[in-house]
């Protein structure tokens, strides 16, 4: 594989935008005191994120733990109200709709939660949980009957359809995660926001699920926002990848660009740390170890947020916040003053 | 109250030196101003704080001297009272005839809204003052310092009896300055004086007034009335020794009182009269036979036995038997005779549906139910409904004459007089005549008796009047209450005495243990 990014034309360039996100911000207040609380600061969980998701496209989102991915997902679903920014679903302002209209739109956007267990009602059987979307949206009622459809869905995600009457606590972690997936798929939405949908699955089931997602996308032109930590999985499924750091996008480009010519130092560090499923390579890879502690999201460093841990950091990084644009040789957008492809990229497996 | 009763028992037990302290059950008084106190709780306390012109001899229920040494009348209409000369209030203020004039005028002044004001309604000049046409009653005059003259609008022989009542106690001049403050610690002229203020809902304590001018001063050095909200509790407190005297133990306790108290209890007949009134303004009850039948269908003794453990005296009278004026054997229809009752009722065509009225929360449910059961069983009454109402509502119904069936009420004597047992309830248009009874013959007899100067003749006339009532039966006499008094070991049981007006005379109680 060559180091330079393939200048292939963006295959989604002519597709309509499904989700247009602009300058999304969410700060969580930090309070002190027990009864009479005062606000002493704010966790800047999401701090100005913009991107555009197009029809049939998968946008992978990776980033450091705690950088705001789940919060972003919840904002997109309007499960949290953003402090600023806009979200347009197919050109419609998603943030201002209310009531029935909101519910109608929510049918089109589904989410698979990061935490599989707490997002399942403990007093509903799996059958009821997965059937719920159909009950909420009667117009989507499957032809073959809800129950059969639920069984199909269970089967699709590799769960035993006989377990339809079981309750969430009777399942293993991975099984619970799949219940969430089945629920997210039920309504055939236009966009699915997957927050680490496969993290608890063994690779075989993971493969099944990813194939399923792939098939659905091919068939119905679904769009995904796919949040995950497993970079292989992200690469496998994504068309474009966004790398988040401390509430902001650090880099956004096509899957090839990001994986082959990562331009942001954080992306480079991330890719270098990917463990490979081959014990013989143990210790033989070169890994960029980030120095210093992760910064406090309540009080992020000035200028470039990554600068405190960046080996390329210069003075400008402390004073000027880099914009998310493509610079110089690189084609993808990277929020780094020194954005440049690095020699050290993901090692290939043998 | 007062009298020589306490003296009789003096030698029976060895009292503690100085008299000791006695504590007694009481309920929270409404008022502690003589002219304003109409209920037992307050009057009982006032009874020890004040002495009126006249007192009652507890042995005979006859009037005896109080502040007045003697009195005199020619026509039962104009009365002259000669006052004792060494009476003072607890604060030292001397008592003269003018004291009474001032007090009486103050009491009836509508601005002072004293509830007992209408006890004065047969005083000459009362109405003028009430109407605002006069400042003072003409009928009460201080002839000189120690001679008081009272003129009535019509002859009224029981006046001395009436003057024993709380409403006629004298009040010191401090009272008029700030009646509210006075009420918290009344200054009287009685055997006892306030020790501290009235501790609302907790207690009222009095000390013996050693300068009392009367003949037989109080025995205990100190009396404490403890206010209770529940009699059962007071009963237990006496049992446990926290309280010395409970003068009205719950009737149902009679069954256990012996095991609870051994000898430490006593029974007293009183003038407290319970009756079933009949609304004569309703057609069904205008037939006297119906009333007789209803009366005869009640087995009073059975009810008393079952529900009061035998503690009431079945009434065959209107005048309490405790008064000598009560007639005997006049009540033809007070005996239980179910057959006769049924027959009579049938003939008279008495109502088949009855609504029985009583006030709630005062323990009348059981006996009223028992009465209704007997009426149902004996008279073939099919349907009985009960109306148990809050007292205010209950009275309102009476005032509006909306009662449609037999109703429970009671009467007890503020002063021991046959007149008071009848006139307020049965004479035409009288204030408590809830039955709306009217009988000219009865009215005349009462008036005559009131005018009669010879006590014996008057008594006869009252008895005659009573006989009319028993024949007409505007109310069905039920019983006269019997009070069960229990006491602790600290007091001598023989020294306890309750009068017909249900006041226990604490001043005569001998405390045996400190």
């Amino acid at each position, binding site marked *: 594989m060559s180091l330079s990014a393939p200048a292939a034309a963006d295959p989604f360039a002519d597709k309509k935008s499904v989700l247009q996100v602009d300058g999304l911000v969410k700060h969580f207040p930090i309070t002190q005191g027990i009864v009479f609380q005062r606000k002493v600061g704010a966790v800047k969980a999401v701090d100005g994120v913009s991107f555009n998701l197009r029809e049939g496209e998968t946008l992978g989102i990776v980033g450091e733990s705690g950088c705001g991915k789940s919060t972003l997902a919840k904002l997109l679903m309007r499960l949290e109200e953003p402090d600023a920014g806009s979200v347009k679903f197919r050109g419609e302002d998603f943030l201002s709709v209310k009531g029935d209209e909101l519910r109608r739109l929510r049918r089109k956007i589904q989410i698979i939660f990061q935490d599989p267990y707490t997002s399942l009602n403990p007093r509903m059987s799996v059958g009821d949980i997965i059937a*719920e979307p159909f009950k909420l949206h009667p117009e989507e009622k499957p032809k073959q009957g809800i129950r059969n459809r639920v069984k199909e869905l269970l089967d699709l995600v590799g769960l035993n359809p006989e377990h339809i*009457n079981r309750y969430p606590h009777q399942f293993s972690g991975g099984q619970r995660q799949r219940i969430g997936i089945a629920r997210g798929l039920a309504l055939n939405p236009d966009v699915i926001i997957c927050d680490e949908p496969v993290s608890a699955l063994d690779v075989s089931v993971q493969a099944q699920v990813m*194939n399923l997602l792939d098939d659905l996308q091919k068939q119905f032109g679904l769009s995904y926002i796919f949040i995950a930590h497993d970079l292989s999985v992200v690469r496998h499924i994504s068309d474009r990848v966004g790398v988040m750091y401390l509430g902001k996008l650090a880099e956004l480009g096509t899957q090839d660009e990001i994986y082959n010519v990562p331009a942001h130092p954080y992306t480079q560090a991330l890719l270098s740390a990917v463990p490979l499923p081959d014990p013989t390579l143990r210790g033989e890879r070169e890994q960029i170890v980030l120095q210093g502690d992760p910064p406090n999201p309540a009080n992020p460093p000035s200028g470039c947020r990554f600068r405190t841990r960046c080996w390329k950091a210069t003075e400008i990084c402390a004073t000027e916040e880099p914009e998310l644009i493509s610079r110089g040789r690189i084609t993808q957008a990277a929020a780094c003053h020194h954005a440049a492809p690095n020699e050290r990229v993901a090692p290939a497996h043998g | 109250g007062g009298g020589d009763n306490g003296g009789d028992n003096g030698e029976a037990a060895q009292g503690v030196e100085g008299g000791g302290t006695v504590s007694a059950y009481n309920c929270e008084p409404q008022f502690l101003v003589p002219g304003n106190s109409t209920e037992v709780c307050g009057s009982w306390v006032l009874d020890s704080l004040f002495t009126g012109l006249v007192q009652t001899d507890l042995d005979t229920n006859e009037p005896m001297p109080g502040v007045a040494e003697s009195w005199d009348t020619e026509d039962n209409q104009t009365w002259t009272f000669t006052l004792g000369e060494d009476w003072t209030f607890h604060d030292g203020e001397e008592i003269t005839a003018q004291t009474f004039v001032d007090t009486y005028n103050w009491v009836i002044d509508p601005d002072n809204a004293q509830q007992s004001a209408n006890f004065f309604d047969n005083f000459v000049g009362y109405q003028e003052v009430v109407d605002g046409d006069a400042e003072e009653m003409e009928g009460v005059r201080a002839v000189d310092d120690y001679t008081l003259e009272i003129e009535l609008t019509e002859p009224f022989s029981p006046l001395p009896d009436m003057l024993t009542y709380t409403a006629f106690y004298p009040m010191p001049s401090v009272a008029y300055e700030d009646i509210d403050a006075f009420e918290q610690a009344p200054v009287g002229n009685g055997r006892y004086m306030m020790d501290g203020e009235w501790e609302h809902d907790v207690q009222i304590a009095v000390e013996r007034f050693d300068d009392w001018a009367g003949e037989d001063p109080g025995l205990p050095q100190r009396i404490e009335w403890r206010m209770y909200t529940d009699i059962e509790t007071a009963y237990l407190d006496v049992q446990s020794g926290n309280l010395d005297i409970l003068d009205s133990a719950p009737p149902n306790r009679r069954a256990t009182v012996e095991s609870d108290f051994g000898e430490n209890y006593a029974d007293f007949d009183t003038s407290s009269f319970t009756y079933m009134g009949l609304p004569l303004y309703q057609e069904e009850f205008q037939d006297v036979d119906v009333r007789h039948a209803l009366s005869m269908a009640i087995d009073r003794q059975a009810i008393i036995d079952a529900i009061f453990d035998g503690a009431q005296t079945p009434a065959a009278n209107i005048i309490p038997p405790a008064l000598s004026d009560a007639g005997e054997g006049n009540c033809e229809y007070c005996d239980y005779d179910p057959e006769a009752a049924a027959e009579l009722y049938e003939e008279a065509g008495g109502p088949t549906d009855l609504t029985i009225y009583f006030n709630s929360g005062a323990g009348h449910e059981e006996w009223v139910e028992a009465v*209704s059961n007997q009426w149902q069983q004996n008279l073939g009454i099919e349907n009985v409904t009960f*109306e148990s109402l809050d007292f205010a509502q209950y009275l309102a119904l009476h005032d509006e004459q909306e009662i449609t069936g037999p109703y429970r009420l009671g009467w007890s004597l503020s002063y021991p007089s046959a007149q008071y047992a009848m006139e307020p309830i049965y004479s035409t248009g009288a204030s408590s005549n809830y039955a709306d009874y009217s009988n000219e013959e009865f009215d005349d007899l009462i008036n005559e008796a009131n005018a009669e100067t010879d006590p014996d003749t008057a008594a006869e006339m009252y008895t005659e009047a009573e006989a009319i009532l028993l024949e007409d039966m505007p109310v069905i006499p039920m019983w006269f209450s019997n009070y069960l008094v229990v006491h602790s070991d600290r007091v001598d049981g023989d020294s306890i005495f309750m009068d017909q007006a249900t006041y226990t005379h604490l001043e005569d109680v001998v405390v045996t243990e400190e």
Partner: protein
Amino acid sequence: MSEMHKAEARTEPIDSQLESSGKAKKKTEEASLLADAWRSLRKNPWFIISAVLLLLFLSMAVFPSLFTNTDPRECLLARSRQDPSAEFWFGTDVQGCDYYSRVIYGARNSIAVGFIVAIGTFIIAVLLGLVAGYFGGWVDAVISRLTDMVFAVPYILGALVLLNALQAFQAQGVREVAFVLIIFMWPTMTRLMRGSVISVVNSDFVMAARALGAGPITIMRRHILPNSLGPVIGYATVFTGIIIGAEATLTFLGVGLQLPAISWGLQLSDARQYLQTSPHLLLFPVIFVGLTVFAFMTMGDAVRDALDPKSKK
């Protein structure tokens, strides 16, 4: 590993596989929380016991004559307050009525009041509590302050006035008394419900439901209700017993059931006076009320257990 690359192709249609499993497990087919609950209830001996007891009391309330031939209103003062004997199993009361039949006939009013009030307050409490807890904000403020006011208005006062408005001068029946009790008894339960709603309303699964496009009603009904009902059920079952007592208090205050009505509450409050002399007057109604409360409580427990999929039973 190339040989495995092919294994993806599918051969059999899914339906056949589904069908075979469907047939095998026909009996476990339809299952919802309620159906499951019912199934496990039927196996719970405590449920059976309480159900039998309740049925017994209910039939006592509806057909008292099945249990006794004696007329409860046939009273002879002469045999007042007799101890239990072969003739009078539960003795006689003050009026000399057969206490056994009085207690049996007392079931109707007491259970009726208990039931109506418990159910009435339960419904009000669940609805208001749900709404207040779920929506919060001014909805909650209005409902909560309303509870404060109802708490504060002494119910005797309310009862006096209300019953009067309900033509109190006619005899006060079960309906009126129940009505008054409901009006004044709902706040406690409502607050309980509101509290437990508040503690589940922030759950992730509620958020998940919202994400699915569920409206407030659906969320309340399907997600919050089943997860917040526990304490209210627990309270409501005991509450039935409390009501039976409260009914007696009302009577005592002159605004409750009126004589000659027969009810356990009346019997209980009458019996107090004869606690030492005729304890049987207290004992028997207490046993009956106690058993009723016990039955309700055990049934409540059983239902709660059954509604909890995690229950260990």
